[in-house]
């Protein structure tokens, strides 16, 4: 060591009788390690909260055979939404299913809100009729739409045979598979 020191460190002044041996610093730069640590923490925090499934409340009415127990819906305030295959929504106002119109899940909010704005609160009623080709997602999307648009009164029932036929005809005409 001493010889090497003498060769390499020629320009150094040596103290009287003291041999300075250069010590390597034991310090490691911990900055990247801290960075990594906090990155992992953030990752874990985000993933734990994201994977938490949520629950949406759904209450169904009791089936009744007595017609006088059924809710009467005013024609002026009725909106019926029907879900068909291929993520298509069919809707009509009032009681006449032949005035069927077609829309999609993105535009249905506007229709609901327009109707809501122009109808007295107590008259407004939405009937949701998922037909037999609809998927579960379709039903949940529409129920979610009720929550988003703050709709107080709505019901989910099956479409009538006539309505189903109308949807089928529209589907055939539109070429929806």
């Amino acid at each position, binding site marked *: 060591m001493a010889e090497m020191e003498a060769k390499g460190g020629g320009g150094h002044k040596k103290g009287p009788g003291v041999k300075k041996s250069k010590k390597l610093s034991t310090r490691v*730069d*911990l*900055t990247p*390690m*801290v960075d990594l*640590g*906090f990155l*992992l*923490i953030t990752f*874990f*925090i985000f993933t*734990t909260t*994201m*994977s*938490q*499934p*949520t*629950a*949406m*409340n*759904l*209450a*169904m*009415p*009791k*089936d009744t055979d007595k017609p006088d127990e059924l809710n009467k819906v005013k024609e002026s305030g009725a909106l019926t939404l029907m*879900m068909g295959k291929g993520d298509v929504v069919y809707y009509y106002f009032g009681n006449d299913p032949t005035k069927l119109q077609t829309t999609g899940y993105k535009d249905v*909010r506007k229709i609901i*809100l327009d109707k809501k704005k122009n109808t007295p609160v107590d008259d407004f009623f939405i009937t949701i009729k*998922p*037909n*037999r*080709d*609809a*998927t*579960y*997602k*379709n*039903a*949940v*999307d529409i*129920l*979610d739409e009720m*929550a*988003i*648009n*703050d709709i107080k009164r709505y019901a989910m029932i*099956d479409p009538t045979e006539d309505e189903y036929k109308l949807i089928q005809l529209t589907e055939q005409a539109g070429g929806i598979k």
Partner: protein
Amino acid sequence: MGRAKIKRGSTNIDMTAMCDVAFLLLSYFILIAEFKPAEAIEVNPPSSVASKAAPQTDAFLVSISPEGQVFVQLSEEMKGDVIEEISTARNLNFSAEDKSLFKQSLFIGTPLSQLPQFVRIKPENLHSVKLTGIPIDSTNNELEAWINAALNVYKGKKINWLIKGDNNSKYLVFRDVINSFKKNEVFKYQLVTNAEDIPAESELARKPQKTEGTE
């Protein structure tokens, strides 16, 4: 050029302490994190704006697979009593071994008649076995029997009825499940969904935020 040399303080900060804290927190979060409960079958639920977390205790979870099979997952604390109940209600005479294996099984995926064979399938082999699901057709509705058994076990106490359907499952199956509940006079359910942000500018966003989940 006689510029005065200003002695600058070192910009190096001792990172050791910070590093300690970071990894302490990291290990804390890793240890505290709960593993996702074992999934019976691959079910991707749709998303909704509901923000209430799905309850995990006293839960009776009905899953609907994309192919329309119906599976039931019972909370741990429910399993033992429910299998006793359904065994006596249907005169099935499950052996003690059947019952203890049932308590370890993750979910119910077959008709009652095949249950003893089903509980003997090892969890790692479940994916390769073709499962029939619980029959819910009108002639043989066993889901109704399971619901009834759970109700009898939990007399008066509240059960969280959860329904978790796949995006692509048919609405008709969902309706059949609801009808099975209705026949047991159960009318309030919770649909398991993935969380989604409330769209800005919507009625719900404008509404003063009440605490959600009040029934």
